[in-house]
């Protein structure tokens, strides 16, 4: 009878972390864990009714594409997604760490409120250590050489195996991203200095080695462009006029009132007349290129082309900003009055470039422009879209390194080092901490152990091929051993260098299996070794992204552990 159904009562479930939920959580964790790192396995996302198939191992695509059933998982995924939207990197890190922390805590059988307090304290301890001067798992970004920046970019590109790049291609792409990034940094430093823009132009079908960086912008080729126009222009500088108003000849809105037009009047003709007047001005003032964000009336277009002015229309709002930035033009919004000559911008040159089957118009700016285009090539659509994400992430990571000029050691070394640091800090002289947290020594140790084991298991999950993970007993770094190694050999014979590449094996080092109880160690604080040698193959992670991911993961895990009820509105 009535369409208004009474609201159904909500579903209220007690104790959200039941065994069943933990099971779901561990499935979720296993999926993410197997994607983690450069050797991670790929996931194919599809629905059984056809549609797009995505191959990926990145958290952004995975969490976006897979609908999650349980509210707790949704909560975790939402906070990871929000982190990724801010920092682009370390999404999987946050998600896996959060999951592992929750699962480990469930096994502890302690009151969640005290565990939460301890985790909170450990988190602030870790953040304080990572931010402190004597932190030995971070390195300063050296802007004098490209090595650290290249390492940062390479780590991001390499951690996305779904791009299907060979080692050499990966190196090449990383260097291209770095090159593009460096182009966006302005040469002059002033109060108004701001970073330029890197525009990614994806080209499908070519091999990754065709990727190139061009300064300036690439725009779609205007149809029916006589090549003679370009040839005629390419001798000197080119005046550019940029319009952001529609030049299609529409009548502007009459607001609330009405406009009555007698039958002799043709508004389109009247406006076209005005447009042509502007066109004449363009021609007389030697404008070589007219760019319009919206549509240009075909009559005007034809007129301008006859007068050897190149017209690019339907540019779209996204490219307007870099175009204005690059040419120094003012975007004009009025064609009623004459365009002031201060609004024109300058271009150095114009040419046609072709990538594969695609022909693009290349707008070449002056020398100190901060706008560049990264023409990204890869074999097929899926790998290209994954590569695009990887490059965007790498560029974001490089940008972040400008705000905080640090990088954290990658390859699991930061995690194991941090874990051993926390363990060593939390065994002695902790009476004050205990009284602050109001918990017993045993409780505290249990929680600390669970926190550190979560960190270590995160480091271990970089290894996917059944190999063993070791930790050295002087620096607390992670070392990998291949699974095929003979059983009766010494660790010393099996390892080469640690996960991040900072340390090579030498006689004084000793190892233990990661994950077992290993003798407590106070990680060495001297990083001098690194200052001297700058090996090429470092693995470095973004400092701001990882710190935020760590905080987000612990906060979300705390939140989930603190939940007493789930109320679901089922209407």
């Amino acid at each position, binding site marked *: 009878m009535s369409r208004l159904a009474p609201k159904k009562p909500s579903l209220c479930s007690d104790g959200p972390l039941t065994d069943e939920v933990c099971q779901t959580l561990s499935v979720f964790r296993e999926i993410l864990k197997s994607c983690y790192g450069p050797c991670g396995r790929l996931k194919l996302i599809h629905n059984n009714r056809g549609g797009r198939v995505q191959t990926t191992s990145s958290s952004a695509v995975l969490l976006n594409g897979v609908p999650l059933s349980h509210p707790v998982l949704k909560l975790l995924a*939402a906070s990871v997604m*929000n982190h990724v939207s801010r920092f682009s990197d370390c999404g999987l890190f946050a998600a896996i760490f959060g999951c592992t922390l929750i699962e480990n805590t469930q096994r502890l059988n302690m009151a969640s409120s005290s565990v939460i307090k301890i985790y909170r304290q450990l988190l602030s301890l870790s953040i304080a250590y990572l931010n402190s001067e004597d932190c030995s798992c971070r390195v300063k970004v050296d802007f004098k050489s490209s090595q650290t920046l290249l390492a940062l970019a390479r780590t991001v590109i390499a951690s996305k195996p779904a791009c299907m790049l060979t080692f050499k291609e990966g190196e090449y792409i990383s260097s291209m991203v770095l090159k593009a990034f460096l182009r966006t940094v302005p040469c002059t430093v002033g109060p108004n200095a701001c970073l330029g823009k890197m525009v990614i132009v994806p080209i499908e079908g070519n091999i990754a080695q065709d990727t190139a960086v061009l300064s300036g912008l690439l725009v779609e080729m205007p149809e029916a462009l006589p090549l003679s126009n370009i040839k005629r222009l390419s001798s000197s500088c080119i005046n550019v006029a940029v319009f952001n108003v529609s030049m299609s000849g529409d009548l502007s809105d009459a607001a609330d009132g009405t406009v009555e037009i007698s039958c002799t009047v043709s508004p389109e003709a009247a406006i076209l007349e005005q447009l042509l007047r502007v066109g004449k001005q363009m021609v007389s003032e030697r404008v070589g290129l007219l760019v319009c964000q919206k549509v240009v009336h075909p009559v005007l277009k034809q007129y301008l082309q006859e007068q050897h002015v190149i017209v690019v229309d339907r540019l779209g709002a996204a490219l307007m900003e870099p175009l204005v930035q690059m040419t120094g033009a003012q975007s004009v919004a009025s064609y009623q009055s004459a365009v002031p000559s201060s609004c024109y911008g300058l271009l150095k040159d114009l040419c046609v470039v072709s990538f594969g089957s695609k022909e693009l118009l290349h707008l070449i700016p002056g020398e100190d422009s901060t706008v560049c285009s990264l023409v990204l090539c890869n074999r097929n659509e899926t790998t290209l879209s994954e590569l695009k994400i990887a490059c965007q992430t790498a560029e974001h990571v490089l940008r972040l390194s400008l705000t905080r000029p640090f990088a954290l050691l990658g390859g699991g070394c930061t995690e194991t080092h941090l874990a051993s640091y926390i363990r060593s800090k939390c065994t002695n002289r902790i009476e004050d901490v205990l009284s602050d947290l109001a918990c017993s020594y045993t409780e505290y140790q249990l929680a600390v152990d669970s926190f550190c084991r979560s960190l270590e298991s995160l480091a271990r999950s970089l290894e996917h091929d059944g190999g063993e993970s070791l930790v050295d007993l002087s620096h607390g770094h992670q070392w990998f051993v291949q699974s095929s190694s003979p059983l009766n050999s010494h660790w010393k014979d099996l390892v080469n260098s640690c996960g991040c590449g900072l340390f090579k094996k030498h006689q004084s080092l000793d190892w233990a299996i990661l994950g077992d109880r290993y003798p407590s160690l106070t990680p060495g604080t001297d990083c001098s070794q690194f200052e001297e040698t700058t090996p090429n193959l470092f693995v470095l992670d973004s400092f701001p992204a990882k710190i935020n991911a760590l905080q987000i993961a612990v906060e979300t895990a705390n939140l989930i552990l603190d939940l007493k009820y*789930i109320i679901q509105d089922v209407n």
Partner: protein
Amino acid sequence: MNHVHSLDIGTLIQIAETLESIVCQCFGPNGGQVLFTKATGDILVTRDGQRVLNSLLLDHPIARMIVDCVSAHCSVTGDGAKSFILLLSALLRGLQALVDKGTAGQSTCHNFLGRAKQRSQEMKHVTDCLLTFQTQVLDQIIRRHLNQHVTSLFTGDKMTVTNDKMRSIMEAYFCGKIGNVHCKFLSEMACDYFFKCTCDQGRGQTLNLICRHFIDLHTAVKGFPIGSSRILEGLVLHRDFTVYCQTDGQLKVLVVTEPIQPPLSDAGTTLLLRSNFQLQSSNIWIAKRVEEIMNFLQQNQVKLLLSSVKQSDVVLYHAKLCGISVVQCIEADELSLFCYLAGIAPLSSPWDILHTRDTDLANAVFCKPVLLGPHRYAHIGLMNRGDFSPHCVILCGPIPGLTEQCVSAFHGGFKMLQHVFEPVDLSQGQEPCNTNPNNANADEAHQVLTHCSLETVVQEDSIIDTLNKTSDRHDIRCPTTEEMCASSNLVSDKEQGEVITEDPRANQSSLAADVILDIRNTQTGILAGCKTTGDNLDEQLKQMNMNCENKAREMGSMLGQHGCAFSSCAIQKDSTAAKNTQRDIRGSALTQEHVDVLIEAGSVLPVGGSFEFLLHHYLRLYAQHSLQPEVKTTCSLVADAVLNVPRNIYNTKSTNRHFLQVYTKVRNDIQSKGCIIDCPQLLESMSCKYQLLVSVLQCVRSLVTIDSLIGIDRKTQNTTEGETEDVE
């Protein structure tokens, strides 16, 4: 009428206890949070009792009624939803036990129906007693006993709040609203925010402004840890600059609510175009007009244009050429807040702009874009305007559901403060209003008398002595001088020491409603004057009253927290009763304005169940000395019920041991030293606690008086009867 269910107290208890079991999980220092997924799929994390109860969307009409009562209470005080349920279920349980005991005694009726009838009679009786309990017992106990234990938030003569006290009361509030680990950080931020916004004067104004405009004064940012939350100076408008031109230093701001570009034709008019040239020239005229306006603004040093509507491309283009930044599509509320803070009125039509005077322009200290999470917003620094120095809060969280929790906790915290800063009037809980001043006085006199009848009586000389001392020290809070009565006719009725005479009604009758004077002062001279009896007393007092009112005004501003005692002399004009000069000197934290203040503004108690323990203690004491059995039973009923709140606070791992330890310690403290020692540092509002208890008592009464539920089937009702009353 298809389904008629008789409703007995068992059902009520069942419902209340179900709610209790949900709510108590989030209650107290170890309480957790609730994850709520909305029908839209949004996730919300909350610890707020009201939100939890509302999100349950309950089915049972009684449960819905309870939730409505809770919501009504929370909308007033902004706090106490969880305690409400705890108190309610404890009271209902107590009621059931009482009724069971009452009916078991008299076993005249053996059949079920008869017993049920008897039970309902008994119940009716007890609830009627509960009705009078508030006015007759609770208010007196609050006024006489609990007021000695409160401390005031204010220090100094200007009613300022110290940072420490503010922190303690805020932290106590945040503990109940957000996760434990963050409450210290966020409560400190809330205090900082309050102090940053408050200027020298107009604290109430500031709070009102914060409460009313908190939506515009905060920005929620997702994707960052909560620790990144901060306070920014100035105002963040939640829109980005459409045109941004860098400026340094001070600037002038113009606010418009209409498009600057004149339309081709206005509303209600018709533009008749006869030739192409007309169209072209009108278009050109419009463009010229915009250019003219923007040039005018540039000449007047306007650097920023705020608009509530979208401006045309032409306007933006000319703004850019003139170096004017533009923020458009600002929400009306936000813009009106800006105008209020800047002290200007927005301009509407483009014609007004050319006649702009300097007073129509706002002055800003700076304007720059600020990047908060994914969005870039306009950040504008405003001049400080007397009662509010503009600041805004940035609240970060990993997910929107969590920032929402922080936002509502912040907002609620300020609402709670607003409530704490207001006194509770006696009339509020008692009578709807006292329009007649005589009535008010009579009511007051009644209060005075009841007090007198309950009070320790001291010899007149000693009163004067102590008063002399105390008025010198401005501190009348010590128990012996706290309340005194020097009434000659009552002295004879009383014994020395702590005697409690019951039946206030008798006293009421002895006192005619004709009260002519009340004097608020501590001057002992007046007290001496009061002592003398006779016809000239009236005139004397009238004169003194005038003096005193002047003095009282001075003192009101002079005396701060430490005691502006007042003496209220109620003098009966009646010739026979002329001798009965009633005096009541009440020492309470602070009284400046009204006589009928029950709880002073800013009264706070330590957290951790202090209020409940104290109330329990005094109710028990009262019940012991009470002669009326009804009062005895209601007192002990409420006394036991209030303990349910601390029981849940100290309930760790569902054992009662901790609670019992605390309870024993507190009881010993009260009995031996008269107050609770080493209570927690955090503070909570006394008036909130009091109003909570009053609301719960009212709710219980309305619940218990229902005897059956009538379910109706809408379909049959519509076809057959049409207009039956809808009773649910």
